[in-house]
C-alpha cells in the first residue's frame, strides 16, 4: 500500500497533517528532519585524490624510486648529472599523470541541469493561510497550490483538482500533457494519476495537494541519485593502459634488477650498476605512450565531430570501438520522426458522414490539440500528421470544444465533447484496443448496428494488418449527445460508435538499413527499445533489416513481470525488440547486458534516460534531447541519426587499431635502447646512450610521427570483424614479439652498426675504456641516438598497416606522418648539431656518412616488415575455406 492508494483522510493521517497544512513550527521541525527540498550533489572522490592516484600506481612508484636514488646519488657523488636525471624522471611522472588525468577527467553537469527543472517559489498553506515560500523549504505534509505554468516542487498527492494537466516529459518522456485526478489508485506510485511529480510542469488548470516526498526522495530525486551514482566502470582503454603499465613495470623492474645483479657479479661498482639499472628501466618505460594516446584520442574526437558525433570525454573515443550491443530508440533515430497518414481503414465503406455528419477525419481534426501558430503546426508529431491529413481532406470546420478528457497512458485514449453544427458530440481517439473496448455500435450499410463479436474480430484483423505494414494505428469513435447534459469522463467514454482506423507512417531513415547491415557484419547486436506496439515495431524492424523471421519481442507489461534471470535469458537472443517500453526501463536492460559482459551503447534524450546513459559504456544523447540527457551522455548525435553511431563505432575501432600500431612502433625502439646498454655493462664498451638521450627519444623525437599513426584511416576489413573479446587488449604476444623482437632486433643491428662505425673511425679498439666525457664517447652515443631516430622513421612507415601492404594504401598517404618525420629530423638536428642540444643531451656532431650509413638499415626494417605482412596475408588466405 502506498500513498496513492489512500483516501485523502488517510493521506492526512499517514503524513500527520491536515487540509490546513502544517504549522510553521512543525514545518521547521520537519525541515530539520527531512532536509531541504533540493537536488543534492552525490559525494564523490575529490579531484585532487584522483590526480594523486595517477602519481602512485605501480609504474609511478618505480619511477619515484629511481628519482629518489638519482637524488641520493647526486648527494653522494655530486656533479655526475644525477640531479638533472632525477628531475627528468619526476617530470616524466608528472607528464604521464597529467595525461592520464586528462583522459579520465570529466565535468559532471547533469545534476546542475536537473536542478534547473525545480521551481524557486511555491504557494503553501502554513498555519491555515496561503504563503509563498522558497521551494527548497517545503516539507512532507505541506499543502500546496498548483497553478497553470507552475513547476511542481515535490511529489504531491493531489486532493483537489480543477482540470489540471501536467507535462510529465522529464519523468516519462511523453510530451503529451496528462490530466490528474484525486481518486485513490491502487498501482505503483510512478504510474499513479493522482500524483504530481517534482520536476514536471502544470500545463493548464489548477490543483491542491499534499507533499509526501521532497528533494532526493522524490521520483525526480531518484533519477538524480542514479545519474550521480551509476558509472559504466573503468573504460576498456583505461584498463588496457593499466595492464600495459603493469607489464612494462614488470619487464623494466625485472631487467633493471637482473642487470644490476650481473654488473655486481662481474665486478662493476655499485654506482655504475645503479646508473645502468636506471638506464635500463627508463629504456623500457614508454614515457611517450600516454601523451601520444591522449593526443590521438583528442584528434579522433575531432574527426568524429566532423561526422556529427560529438564526444564528451576522451576515452569514449576508444570505448566506441569495443561496443558489442546498441540499445536504440526507434522514433527519430531509426526513423525520420516525420509522421504522415498512410492509410484510412473504415469498417463500413459507406461514409457515415452522410448519416450523422461526422467522418473519421472530423474526429481526427477536432479531437486533436495541434495549434496553428503563424502558419506553422505545433504539436505532437502524430497529432500534427492527423491534423494535416484531416485539413487536406475536409478543410477547417467551425466548432467549439466544450470539454476535454486528456490522454493518459492508462486509458490510452483522449476524448472531447464538442459542439458542431448545433449538435454536441463525444469524439474519441486512441489505441485500437482502448477504443474498441468503449465502442458498442458501428455502421453497417449506413445503419448503426450493435458492434458484435464478429465485427470486433474483423476490426482487430484490420488494425493488425495495418500494424504489420509498420504503421502506427489509431482508432476513432464518436457519439451524439444531448448538449444539456453535464458529462463526466466515464459517461462520455461509453457506448460509442466505432468509426475506423488511421495508419500513420514514420518512414525509416534511408541510410539506416545500410548501417544495420554494417553492424551485422561487425557482429554488433542492435536492440530496439520503443514505446510503439509490437506489430508496428516488428514491421519497421523487418523493413530496415533489424530482424528476420524469428525475433523475440517483449512488451513493457511482460518486461515488468520478468525476473532478472528471465531477462538474462531473453537478452541472450540474437534479435530482440522491446515494445511499449518507457525510458525508465532502459537502465535495467543496460545493467543486465553489462552483467552478461557486453559493452553497451544506449541512446536517449529525456531526463529519465540519464541513469541509463550514465551506466552504459557509451551513453548517446540526441542533439535534440534535453540538457540533462546531453550532460549525462558520452556522445551527442548532432543529427540524431543511427548511422552516425555506426560511423562513430568504425572510427573507434580504427583508433584502437591505431593505438596498437603506435604501441608496436614504440616497443620496437625500446629494444634498440636497451641492447646497447646491456652491451655497455656486459662487454665493457663505451657508454652507447645516455639517460637524457633516451628521454629525448621517448618524449621528443618519436612522438610526432606516432601522432601520425593515430590518424590512419580505418582498414577496409575493420567492420567485417566481430567486436574484440573482453580479454583481448592492446598488447598480446604478437604485439610484443613484433615490437620487441622482430622490429626491435632489426633496428638494434642498424643502431649498433652506426655506433661501432663511429668508434672505429675514431680509433677505438675493443677492450679500451674511454672516459665518460670523451669526445669520441659523445659522438658514438650520438650515432646510437641518430640510429634509433632513423630506425623509427622506417618503423613508422612499416607500422602504418597491420596486414595490408603499405604500398596498397599509398606510402606517402598520411601527411601528418610526413610532418611528424620532418619535426623529428629537425629536433634531432638540433640535439646533434646545436651547442645547446650538445650540452643538455651530451651529444656531439656526427658526419653525414653516419646518416647515409643508416638509410639501408632503415629500408631493411621497412621491407622486412612488408615481408612479414605478406606472409601473414598468405597464411590468412590459405586458412580460409
Amino acid at each position: 500500500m502506498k500513498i496513492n492508494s489512500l483516501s485523502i483522510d488517510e493521506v492526512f493521517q499517514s503524513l500527520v497533517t491536515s487540509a490546513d497544512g502544517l504549522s510553521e513550527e512543525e514545518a521547521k521541525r520537519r525541515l530539520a528532519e527531512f532536509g531541504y527540498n533540493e537536488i543534492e550533489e552525490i559525494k564523490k572522490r575529490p579531484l585532487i585524490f584522483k590526480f594523486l592516484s595517477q602519481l602512485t600506481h605501480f609504474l609511478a612508484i618505480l619511477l619515484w624510486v629511481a628519482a629518489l636514488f638519482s637524488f641520493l646519488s647526486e648527494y653522494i657523488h655530486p656533479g655526475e648529472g644525477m640531479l638533472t636525471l632525477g628531475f627528468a624522471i619526476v617530470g616524466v611522472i608528472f607528464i604521464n599523470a597529467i595525461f592520464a588525468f586528462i583522459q579520465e577527467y570529466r565535468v559532471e553537469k547533469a545534476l546542475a541541469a536537473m536542478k534547473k527543472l525545480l521551481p524557486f517559489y511555491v504557494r503553501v498553506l502554513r498555519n491555515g493561510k496561503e504563503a509563498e515560500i522558497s521551494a527548497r523549504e517545503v516539507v512532507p505534509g505541506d499543502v500546496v497550490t498548483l497553478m497553470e505554468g507552475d513547476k511542481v516542487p515535490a511529489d504531491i498527492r493531489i486532493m483537489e483538482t480543477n482540470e489540471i494537466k501536467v507535462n510529465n516529459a522529464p519523468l516519462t518522456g511523453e510530451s503529451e500533457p496528462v490530466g490528474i485526478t484525486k481518486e485513490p489508485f491502487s498501482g505503483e506510485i510512478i504510474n499513479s494519476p493522482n500524483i504530481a511529480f517534482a520536476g514536471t510542469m502544470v500545463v493548464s488548470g489548477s490543483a491542491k495537494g499534499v507533499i509526501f516526498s521532497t528533494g532526493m526522495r522524490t521520483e525526480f530525486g531518484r533519477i538524480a541519485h542514479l545519474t550521480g551514482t551509476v558509472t559504466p566502470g573503468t573504460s576498456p582503454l583505461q584498463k588496457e593502459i593499466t595492464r600495459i603499465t603493469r607489464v612494462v613495470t614488470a619487464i623494466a623492474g625485472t631487467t633493471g634488477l637482473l642487470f644490476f645483479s650481473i654488473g655486481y657479479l662481474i665486478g662493476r661498482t655499485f654506482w655504475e650498476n645503479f646508473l645502468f639499472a636506471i638506464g635500463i628501466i627508463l629504456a623500457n618505460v614508454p614515457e611517450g605512450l600516454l601523451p601520444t594516446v591522449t593526443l590521438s584520442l583528442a584528434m579522433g574526437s575531432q574527426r568524429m565531430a566532423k561526422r556529427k558525433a560529438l564526444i564528451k570525454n576522451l576515452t569514449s573515443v576508444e570505448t566506441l570501438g569495443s561496443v558489442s550491443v546498441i540499445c536504440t530508440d526507434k522514433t527519430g533515430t531509426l526513423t525520420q520522426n516525420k509522421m504522415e497518414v498512410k492509410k484510412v481503414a473504415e469498417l463500413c465503406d459507406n461514409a457515415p458522414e452522410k448519416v450523422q455528419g461526422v467522418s473519421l477525419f472530423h474526429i481526427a481534426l477536432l479531437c486533436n490539440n495541434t495549434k496553428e501558430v503563424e502558419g506553422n503546426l505545433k504539436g505532437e508529431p502524430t497529432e500534427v500528421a492527423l491534423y494535416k491529413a484531416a485539413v487536406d481532406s475536409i478543410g477547417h470546420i467551425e466548432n467549439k470544444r466544450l470539454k476535454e478528457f486528456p490522454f493518459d497512458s492508462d486509458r490510452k485514449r483522449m476524448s472531447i465533447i464538442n459542439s458542431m453544427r448545433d449538435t454536441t458530440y463525444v469524439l474519441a481517439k486512441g489505441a485500437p484496443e482502448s477504443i474498441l473496448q468503449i465502442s458498442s455500435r458501428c455502421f453497417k450499410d449506413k445503419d448503426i448496428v450493435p458492434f458484435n463479436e464478429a465485427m470486433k474480430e474483423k476490426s482487430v484483423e484490420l488494425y493488425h494488418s495495418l500494424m504489420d505494414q509498420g504503421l502506427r494505428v489509431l482508432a476513432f469513435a464518436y457519439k451524439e449527445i444531448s448538449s444539456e447534459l453535464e458529462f463526466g469522463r466515464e459517461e462520455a467514454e461509453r457506448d460509442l460508435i466505432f468509426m475506423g482506423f488511421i495508419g500513420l507512417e514514420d518512414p525509416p531513415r534511408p541510410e539506416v538499413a545500410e548501417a544495420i547491415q554494417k553492424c551485422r557484419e561487425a557482429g554488433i547486436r542492435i536492440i530496439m527499445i520503443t514505446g510503439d506496439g509490437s506489430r508496428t515495431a516488428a514491421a519497421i524492424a523487418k523493413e530496415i533489416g533489424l530482424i528476420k523471421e524469428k525475433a523475440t519481442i517483449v512488451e513493457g507489461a511482460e518486461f515488468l513481470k520478468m525476473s532478472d534471470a528471465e531477462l538474462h535469458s531473453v537478452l541472450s537472443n540474437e534479435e530482440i525488440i522491446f515494445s511499449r517500453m518507457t525510458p525508465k526501463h532502459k537502465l535495467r536492460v543496460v545493467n543486465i547486458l553489462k552483467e552478461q559482459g557486453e559493452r553497451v551503447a544506449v541512446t536517449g534524450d529525456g531526463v529519465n534516460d540519464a541513469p541509463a546513459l550514465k551506466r552504459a559504456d557509451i551513453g548517446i544523447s540526441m542533439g535534440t534531447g534535453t540538457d540533462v540527457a546531453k550532460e549525462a551522455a558520452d556522445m551527442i548525435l548532432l543529427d540524431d541519426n543511427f548511422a552516425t553511431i555506426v560511423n562513430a563505432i568504425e572510427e573507434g575501432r580504427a583508433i584502437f587499431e591505431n593505438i596498437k600500431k603506435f604501441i608496436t612502433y614504440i616497443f620496437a625502439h625500446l629494444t634498440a635502447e636497451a641492447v646497447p646498454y646491456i652491451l655497455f655493462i656486459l662487454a665493457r664498451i663505451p657508454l652507447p646512450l645516455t639517460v637524457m638521450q633516451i628521454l629525448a627519444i621517448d618524449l621528443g623525437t618519436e612522438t610526432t610521427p606516432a601522432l601520425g599513426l593515430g590518424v590512419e584511416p580505418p582498414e577496409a576489413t575493420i567492420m567485417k570483424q566481430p567486436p574484440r573479446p573482453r580479454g583481448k587488449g592492446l598488447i598480446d604476444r604478437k604485439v610484443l614479439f613484433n615490437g620487441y623482437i622482430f622490429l626491435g632486433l632489426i633496428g638494434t643491428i642498424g643502431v649498433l652498426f652506426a655506433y661501432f662505425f663511429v668508434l672505429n673511425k675514431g680509433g677505438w679498439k675493443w677492450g679500451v675504456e674511454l672516459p665518460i666525457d670523451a669526445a669520441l664517447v659523445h659522438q658514438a652515443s650520438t650515432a646510437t641516438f641518430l640510429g634509433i631516430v632513423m630506425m623509427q622513421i622506417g618503423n613508422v612507415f612499416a607500422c602504418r598497416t597491420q596486414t595490408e601492404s603499405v604500398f596498397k594504401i599509398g606510402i606517402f598517404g598520411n601527411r601528418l606522418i610526413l610532418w611528424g618525420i620532418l619535426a623529428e629530423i629537425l629536433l634531432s638536428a638540433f640535439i646533434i648539431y646545436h651547442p645547446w642540444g650538445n650540452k643538455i643531451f651530451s651529444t656531439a656532431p656526427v658526419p653525414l656518412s653516419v646518416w647515409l650509413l643508416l638509410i639501408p638499415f632503415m629500408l631493411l626494417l621497412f621491407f622486412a616488415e612488408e615481408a612479414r605482412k605478406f606472409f601473414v596475408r598468405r597464411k590468412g588466405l590459405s586458412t580460409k575455406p
Partner: protein
Amino acid sequence: MYSKILAAVNEHLNSEISARYALKLAKACGAKFSLCFIAEKGLSQSDFNRAEDAMKRLFIEAEKADIQAESITETGEPVKEIEKIVRHEKINIVFASTRREDVEKRFYAGTIARRLSLNLPCSVALVRVVHMGRIHPRKILVPLKARIDHVRERAYFTAKMAECCDSKVFIFHATKPITKFFHGEVHLTPLEWGKRLPDDIAGFMRYLEKYSIEHEGRLSPGRAGRSITTEAAAKRFDLVIMGSSKRSLLSSIFKGNPVEVVLRETLCDLIILNPRHEDK
C-alpha cells in the same frame, strides 16, 4: 522469538513512523506492543504534547489492528530509562528512530540511537525514515555481508517484516571484484557470481524458505555502501534492512563504513538491526 516489542516515541514525526514498523512486526509476531516516551529535562510543553499525541494516535492504530498495547511515559535520560523498561518488561526488541542530525555525525557516534543500539540488553532496530509515501513496503532489500552473526534472528526479523507487509525480499551481497595482476578485473556473469554465494547468506536464504518468504538473491562486485543505495534506487525498493556496522573507528576511517553511506544516501526507509538473540 519476539513476544514483547517496544517502540520509543518522542516529539519528532519520524519516531511515530518508525513505531508503525514496530506495530506491524508486533502484529506479525502476535507480540505485545509497548510504546514509551521518555521526556528529557527541559522539554517544552508543546513538544511534550506532540509526543503524547503521537502516542495516542499509535495506540488507536494498535487497537484498530487488534494488537495488545500499552504505553509508558517516564522522565529522565532516555537511554537509561529505556534500558530500565527493557529489563523490567523483558522486552525482546526495541524500535527507535534515527534522526537526520544523527546521520550527519560521523559514524553517528554519541547519538541516542547509537547508544541504544550498543547498550540495550535486547535486539534493537534503528529506523531511518526517509520516504513517507511508501507506507507498506512491497519490496524489501536485504544487503548482507559474507559473514554474518545471528543468522536465525536476522532471517526471522526479515521474514516477519515481509510477512506483515506481504513483501518480496531481495538479498544483495556487494563483493570485491576479482582481479588478476596482469589481467585486471575479471568479469563474471551473475550465474558465476551465484556460485560464489557465501555460506552464511545461503543459510539466511534457507531460513527464509523455511518461513515461506518469496525471495531472490544477487551478488554484485562493487563498494558496498554505494552499491546498496544504487540497487535500492534503481529497483525502487521500499525498505532496506541491514545489520549494524561492526567496523572499528579506525577501519571505518580507512576503509569506509557501508552502514554510514546507506544511512546518508538511502532514498527509501532503512532499518538497521542489531540482533541479540543467540542462534540455537
